[in-house]
């Protein structure tokens, strides 16, 4: 029997010759992002498969963990049950934070606080090659990504976009050998270039030997490299050795402290920001956005509680005076009874004062932990409110 290839020999040769020339073309032609078409085709062909594989792996691992490996499930269930009561109260306070621990919300919150416009992306694969310090993210030119854009997380800078495909991009990580970014110390006095070395630690180059840098100093992006805007955390100085003409400084990249992040932000429109005065350890990542103010009639609207202790005392005195018909500061000669409660009576405590309370009561005037935390967040959110936008 004649084989189809032999029967359609002419057409087969035509297809082969044209295909060969297509490959030849694809090797040479580069797209708008300066990536050869054949590379773009390959990545676009492989990316969906890689995503499916990753989804399959994730699902399989989850299935095995959740349904197959149930050896200790009974004991763990009893232990969890015993801890449930103790955690219930704590859960109330932590629920908001746990909700905000969701990565996307954290990113959204972070993106809203920074003035730069960003696009959220998910890392779905690492680049081929055992020594490659690059990852693939699920945002490409279709999302407005371009080569050279900076990639950050709430912890710090992560890398920059090396190649852009239609639906994905390759991000070179901060410890990649080709990575470099201008950095400056927190006090803004020492400038250098943070370079990846293909190792966990990065090198800070071009710092003159007379400059003062010490281990533990924080490094921020200087904004000189046209990749990252000024003010993003870059690394922590781990060791400093004097050298000629430059110091030999090793720094740990903050953005990769938690390993390769699963969700990142790509800066599509960078705006410089101030370098924070406080160390980044208290960087408020999980900040609840300010809730919308409830509509209140103007007459009964109480003034916002000011920040200082004296202001709070004044506000309290004014509320009591107004409640007793002696307008605060009117000078009518009548003294309000400041021992009277200005609001509705508080419910009776479950444990009588002086009783065997298991937990010490906070002193009067000290807000409960949640309120304190909430106030701090509200202040931070209010202070950090900016025109930052995030595209998703």
């Amino acid at each position, binding site marked *: 029997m004649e084989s189809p290839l032999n029967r359609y*020999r*002419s*057409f087969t*040769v*035509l297809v082969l*010759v*044209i295909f060969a*020339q*297509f490959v*030849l*073309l*694809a090797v*040479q*032609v580069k*797209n*708008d992002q300066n990536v050869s*078409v054949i590379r773009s085709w390959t990545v676009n062909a492989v990316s969906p498969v890689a995503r499916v594989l990753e989804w399959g792996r994730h699902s399989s691992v989850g299935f095995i963990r959740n349904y197959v490996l149930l050896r200790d499930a009974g004991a763990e269930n009893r232990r969890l049950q015993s801890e449930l009561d103790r955690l219930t109260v704590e859960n109330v306070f932590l629920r908001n934070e746990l909700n905000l621990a969701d990565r996307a919300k954290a990113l959204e919150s972070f993106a809203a606080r920074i003035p730069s416009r960003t696009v959220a992306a998910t890392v779905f694969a690492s680049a081929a090659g055992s020594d490659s310090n690059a990852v693939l993210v699920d945002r490409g030119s279709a999302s407005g990504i371009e080569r050279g854009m900076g990639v950050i997380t709430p912890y710090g800078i992560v890398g920059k976009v090396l190649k852009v495909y239609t639906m994905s991009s390759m991000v070179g990580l901060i410890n990649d050998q080709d990575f470099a970014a201008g950095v400056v110390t927190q006090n803004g006095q020492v400038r250098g270039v943070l370079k990846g070395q293909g190792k966990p630690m990065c090198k800070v180059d071009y710092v003159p030997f007379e400059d003062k840098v010490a281990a533990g100093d924080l490094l921020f992006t200087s904004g000189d490299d046209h990749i990252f805007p000024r003010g993003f955390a870059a690394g922590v100085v781990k060791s400093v050795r004097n050298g000629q003409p430059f110091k030999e400084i090793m720094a740990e990249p903050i953005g990769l402290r938690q390993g390769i992040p699963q969700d990142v932000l790509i800066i599509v429109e960078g705006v410089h920001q101030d370098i924070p005065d406080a160390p980044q350890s208290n960087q408020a990542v999980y900040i609840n956005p300010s809730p919308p103010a409830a509509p209140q009639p103007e007459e009964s609207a109480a003034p916002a509680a000011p920040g200082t202790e004296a202001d709070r005392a004044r506000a309290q005195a004014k509320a009591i005076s107004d409640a007793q018909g002696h307008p605060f500061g009117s000078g009518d000669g009548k003294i309000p009874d400041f021992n009277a409660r200005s609001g509705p009576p508080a419910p009776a405590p479950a444990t009588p004062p002086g009783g065997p309370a298991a937990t010490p009561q906070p002193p009067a005037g000290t807000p409960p932990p949640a309120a304190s935390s909430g106030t701090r967040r509200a202040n931070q959110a209010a202070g950090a409110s900016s025109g930052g936008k995030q595209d998703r």
Partner: protein
Amino acid sequence: MSYSSGRILLSSQREGQVSRFRPWVMVVVPLAAILFQVYVPLFFQFLKFIEMPLLVVVYFALMRRNQIGGLLVGAMIGLAQDSLSKNPLGMYGIVDTWVGYVAASVGARLDVDHAVIRFLLAIFFYLVHQVSYWILEHMLLGHQSAFKIDEWLMFGVLNAVVAVALFHFLDKLREPA
């Protein structure tokens, strides 16, 4: 084998005469065509419209009536054109390969010694060439060139006039049967 002047379609492939050419003709003629396209418009700008390499591809493909031979001639001439153009290798190669294949397929079914047929085929293949190149430009290079069908039609007719004369000249280089 003789051809009646009134017949256009061949009743069978055997009826078509397969022309043979000396090896030097297969080398020199395409080379001359490419040199013509490269050098002549330098001095005579108005001759820029003549797609001499394309006409040579069409001629060899039509006359040899061999699809593989036709597409290979097209590929070779097209790649040579690409080498001398600013576009990536393969643009003309793909188009001329395609034209060579189709021309050889058509040559097996039509009386390609007929002048009118040659004229019409030259227009047809010129349009195929231009449209294919335009599609490739758009899809692979992202160029946003205009689809100038009226200009291509006019140049197709002019190329066809040149083709009739060129084919007549090239007929003399065929090996005698």
